[in-house]
């Protein structure tokens, strides 16, 4: 038997039919749905008189456009409300379980998938959202799809694909104090650029990854799309199995050992080869801060804003000039001199309980800078409840943070949580694109402790000196 990667193995287990030219019908084990990318797909099914093939393999929640303020009040954005109501109506009509604002399981779609045990090693998973790569942290093959493919999966439980290239990103060594999974993935994107993984499925390997918690692995896999990859995955191990055990949709106790035995066979064979490689030494990584308008425009907190004039490639130079103009930054300015107006701790990248812990540890007993408005948006209702049970909400509120309901919030600003023009944020989210957090808003991506420290100081600080 030829040596295989984990991707090859999961792919082969899901082939329904392969055509002579390589086009393959692959089976999808779990389909996650939210309010923004699904209405046109449900409408397509209705218009064609088609049924939902497997209502038992689809799960829906509301996360993208919902407010994070008091949910007992009606939504004031009429168009957003229509979209949310449409999801409720569609889920009822097609018999899809919906974790809506009244459900204790509501949350960001990529947070509740693992939380509910829907995400499992070896599964193929899709969602009409690019950060579906998050689920790969548990050894699932998970990718974001457009609305036409959402409809395709609804009708057929399959997708048409060709096999992707494979890309091994190996991270070895112990994470230095103050360095998080977010710094690792930002550092990786700094190396590859935003298109370095295009067409590939990444497998993250190495001792640093092995030493990570599930939450940390999810942060890494989450941003695979920011280097252009189709998906990012991590081989399942005891950390994974312990995480999955006992969750709502996990295999029952009686079947769990058998499931684990099967999951253990998924790991990449020792003599398998990848199409691309990148190797990173964890010891070399320092806290990362983005300075530009895509996640590849990133540098060390100890560094300076780069000078476009020194960039050899014309495309890079022009892009950097545009980015600095948009960001209102000058070349060679120390990163720690950048003052901020807003802090956002949240998103499918960094709104899990351990992220909130990491931020709370920094701010405990301190006060948010008078020049800063800071927001914490837990990733799910379950995380929110757990954090409140531990008193984290009090730590945040006493420091001057706003404590909100769960959702995507300021990561993409589809709801009222946006920056005003010209405002600058330290954000634990995943994209610093122009306008992402509001028109003319300036976003710097950082880890939760870096965001928390910036909230207190009013500018970026090296968390290692905190």
């Amino acid at each position, binding site marked *: 038997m030829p040596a295989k990667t984990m991707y090859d193995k999961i792919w082969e287990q899901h082939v329904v039919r392969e*055509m002579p030219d390589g086009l393959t019908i692959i089976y999808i084990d779990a389909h996650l749905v939210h309010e923004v990318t699904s209405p046109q797909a449900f409408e397509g099914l209705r218009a064609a008189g088609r049924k939902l093939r497997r209502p038992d393999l689809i799960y829906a929640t509301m996360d993208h456009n919902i407010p994070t303020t008091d949910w007992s009040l009606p939504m004031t954005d009429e*168009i957003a409300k229509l979209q949310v109501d449409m999801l409720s109506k569609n889920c009822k009509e097609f018999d899809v379980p919906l974790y809506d604002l009244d459900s204790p399981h509501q949350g960001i779609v990529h947070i509740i998938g693992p939380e509910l045990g829907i995400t499992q090693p070896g599964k193929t998973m899709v969602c009409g959202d690019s950060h579906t790569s998050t689920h790969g942290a548990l050894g699932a093959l998970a990718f974001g799809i457009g609305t036409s493919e959402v409809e395709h999966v609804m009708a057929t439980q399959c997708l048409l694909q060709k096999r992707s290239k494979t890309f091994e990103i190996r991270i070895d060594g112990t994470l230095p104090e103050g360095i998080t999974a977010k710094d690792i993935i930002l550092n990786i994107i700094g190396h590859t650029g*935003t298109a370095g993984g*295009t067409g590939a499925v990444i497998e993250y390997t190495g001792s640093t990854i092995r030493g990570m918690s599930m939450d940390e692995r999810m942060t890494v896999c989450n941003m695979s799309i920011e280097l252009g990859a189709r998906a990012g995955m991590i081989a399942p191990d005891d950390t994974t199995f312990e995480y999955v055990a006992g969750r709502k949709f996990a295999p029952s106790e009686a079947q769990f050992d058998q499931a684990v035995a099967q999951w253990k066979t998924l790991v990449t064979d020792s003599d398998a080869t990848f199409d691309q490689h990148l190797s990173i030494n964890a010891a070399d990584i320092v806290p990362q801060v983005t300075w530009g308008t895509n996640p590849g425009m990133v540098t060390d907190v100890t560094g300076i804003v780069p000078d476009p004039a020194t960039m050899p490639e014309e495309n890079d130079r022009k*892009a950097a000039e545009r980015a600095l103009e948009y960001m209102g930054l000058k070349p060679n300015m120390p990163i720690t001199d950048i003052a901020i107006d807003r802090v956002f701790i949240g998103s499918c990248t960094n709104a899990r309980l351990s992220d909130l812990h990491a931020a709370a540890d920094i701010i405990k007993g301190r006060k948010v800078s008078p020049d800063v408005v800071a927001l914490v948006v837990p990733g799910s209702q379950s995380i929110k409840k757990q954090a409140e049970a531990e008193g984290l909400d009090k730590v945040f509120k006493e420091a001057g943070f706003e404590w909100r309901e769960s959702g995507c919030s300021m990561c993409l600003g*589809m709801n009222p949580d946006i920056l005003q023009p010209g405002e600058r944020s330290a954000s634990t989210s995943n*994209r610093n694109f122009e306008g992402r957090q509001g*028109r003319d808003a300036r976003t710097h991506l950082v880890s939760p402790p870096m965001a928390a420290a910036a909230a207190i100081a009013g500018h970026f600080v090296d968390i290692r000196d905190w």
Partner: protein
Amino acid sequence: MPEPFTQHEGRVAPLDRTNVDTDQIIPKQFLKRIERTGFGQFLFNDWRFLPDGSLNTAFVLNEPRYQGTTILVAGDNFGCGSSREHAPWALQDYGFRVVISPSFADIFYNNCFKNGLLPVVLSEETIRRILADASAQEIYTLSVDLEAQTVSEPDGTAHLFEVDPFRKTFILEGLDEIGWTLQYEEDITAYENSR
């Protein structure tokens, strides 16, 4: 079902920017609609319009000579970012039939084919020249032939481009992919029963 795409001749709009992401193509505040149509008015909203809603005359698509253009040529990694199919919907609704770039983000590239919008990859060098010519000349037209997989310049110079055979067939004929897959329903059921 997508509109079929076979050949297209049209005027070119040069967008000399790299990493044009889907948040630029269609900002998030316009994703709340529940239809597939009507997104063209919001295409490149923050670039086309000033904060007060007036036209940004400095933006290339607002120049009089690029009105009615149907082929968009841009720098590499076009369409990076989110999976929102609203991006190709907006480009198409605005009037574009073809987008040409040295490279595309995967999900965006895939989404285009589902909607009869043809994404074409040409070399960086060719794109540089097309961008320069389309900026220098009052009217610059390209001709795209999907069957032959060529993009032809006004002087007749033809550039071959790659396209996956299955994507080509689907978009040439405007096939309903769901209907196509459902031909294999027996295989799907057999697969489900085998697990």
